[in-house]
């Protein structure tokens, strides 16, 4: 019986509500601004094929910071993390598999 109520409690979201202290937000904020400056600076440098890679990498890093800390996913339930993962995965399937068609068109018939 206690098993049922304990699991029931978990269903009902009695996951301890973490409150992020403001100093964390300040640090993340500062990091994001620095990264923005970094990505602008990097775009003025000729790096050939690495330009888009660096730009996307910095973008992904910034987005990860926002998701983990501003949106609180670091302290969230497993379900929330799974949900974010599912969204990113489906997004990547859409882009990746569509692009795979376009890129392989150039490879000729076989």
């Amino acid at each position: 019986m206690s098993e049922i109520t304990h699991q029931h409690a978990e269903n009902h979201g009695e996951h301890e509500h973490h409150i992020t202290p403001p100093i964390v937000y300040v640090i993340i904020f500062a990091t994001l601004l620095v990264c923005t400056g970094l990505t602008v600076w990097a775009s003025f440098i000729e790096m050939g094929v690495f330009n888009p890679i660096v730009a996307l990498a910095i973008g992904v890093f910034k987005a990860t910071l926002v998701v983990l800390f501003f949106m609180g996913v670091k302290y969230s339930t497993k379900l929330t993390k799974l949900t974010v993962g599912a969204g990113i995965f489906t997004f990547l399937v859409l882009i990746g598999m569509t692009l795979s068609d376009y890129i392989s068109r150039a490879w000729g018939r076989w």
Partner: protein
Amino acid sequence: MSSTIVSLPDQSTARIPKTNFITKENGLLSWLLTGDHKRIAILYLISITFFFFIGGALAGLIRLELLTPQSDLMATDTYNKVFTMHGVVMIFLFLVPSVPATLGNFLIPIMLGAKDLALPKINLLSWYLYVVGGILVLYTMISGGVDTGWTFTTPLSTHYVNTNVMSTGLAVFIAGFSSIFTGLNFIVTIHKMRCPGMTWFRMPLFVWSHYAASILMVLGTPVLAIAIVLVALERTVGIGVFDPTKGGDPLLFQHLFWFYSHPAVYIMILPGMGVISEVISTFSRKRVFGYTAVAFSSVAIAVFGFFVWAHHMFIMGISNYAMLVFSLLTMLVAVPSAIKIFNWTFTLYKGSITFETPMLYAFGFMGLFTIGGLTGVFLGTSGTDIHLTETYFIVAHFHFVMVGGMLMAFLSGIHFWWPKITGRMYPEKISQLAAVVTFIGFNFTFFPQFILGTLGMPRRYAAYPPEFQVLNVFSTAGASILGVGYLLPILYLTWSLKYGEIAGNNPWQATGLEWQIQSPPLTENFTVTPIMDHEAYDYEWLENEKAKEVASVG
């Protein structure tokens, strides 16, 4: 050995419970502003039935035109509009919301032991969005229709037609949000509102299949939305995204469109499969064989369903390598569906089978969906697809899975849960007749179309070579029988609202929380939050409950 499992209360003393969700409040506004998931389900049922008959009338027109090889009943342009509207109405306004928005809305909270869905207002909003989408489709039909085919292929839809692409696009966009909100609601409810003891693996399989379909609704439909937005921008502003003269690629539209529309077919069929699980178990008096396999296969269909969309584009200009990959992946996605058919078959094996109407429809589903699914393999194989695509083979394939499969599952579910929703039984004999008539009519209508397709008759053509006429006449004859089969339920179900036998709580002796409460249910479903202490489809538990039941007083 009785040939029916129906067990009704004594009709001379039985009454519909005075307090139920229908009698709780009166007046039109109490229905139009309701948050009660059961009332919303009925609102949906009425609206989708309305659109089903519009789609059906359009189908009738198609079959009438195809009686003769010439395009003599209507102009070819008009024929294009008729089949387009048939597709749009049937897919977006009937099939996508059919089981989820009616039976899913009604039953999921009850099956989970909850008082309502997680977001009742969003549920109501979802219905209103559906209605707005439906009205826009009606507007489109009145103002001359659209003739691009329901697939809106570019550049036809963006550059070469002057029909109502915009209003249809807007209608589908809005109806898409209706679908998204329904799916979102289901996912939240299933995760967060199960009653104590209701673990994931004690939920009815009906809930699992809706969970899988809801994932598809939430993740897939937005891509359709953006595809429509881009078509609208292309048509109005001329941005060039799908226009080769400006450097755009028409095929991009198809990638975005089919990224949704392939999962859409799983959105349509998965809830129907959930119904079949419930019905087959009840009418074999046996738990579903391999519960875990059926549950996981539903989710597997949902996940794999996202990886196969380009099999609709084999002849459209995708690269050979993409063809190879997508064809391979399509073979994979057939496996979970087949797993389900095997599991249902093993459920039947050594079960005590009776043939009430829901079971007749379920048998029809199993046979016809299997045929439809197998023909899908021919289409997933890129080599054969080159010959069969855009012919009547495709038309037959999707009608077998959608009409022979999904629509039969919908009717099975409506009949199965009719006593729970209304408190009354439908008349068994005439409904069994209707099921048989539907099955016969369906086969006469669509089986010849497989042959027509392999012989080479293209789809979406009003005129065809005379050697195809015999099969077409067969098909039209079947369609008239099919029409009768679909008309009968409207008549006798309406009749049953007043004159049907009182059903009582559990006319089918079924397991499941919905059968342990009154028919029709109370607005809050349960007076006491249930505690789930047994597995799903536990017929022994049901026997114990019946033994404890007080049948009469004094």
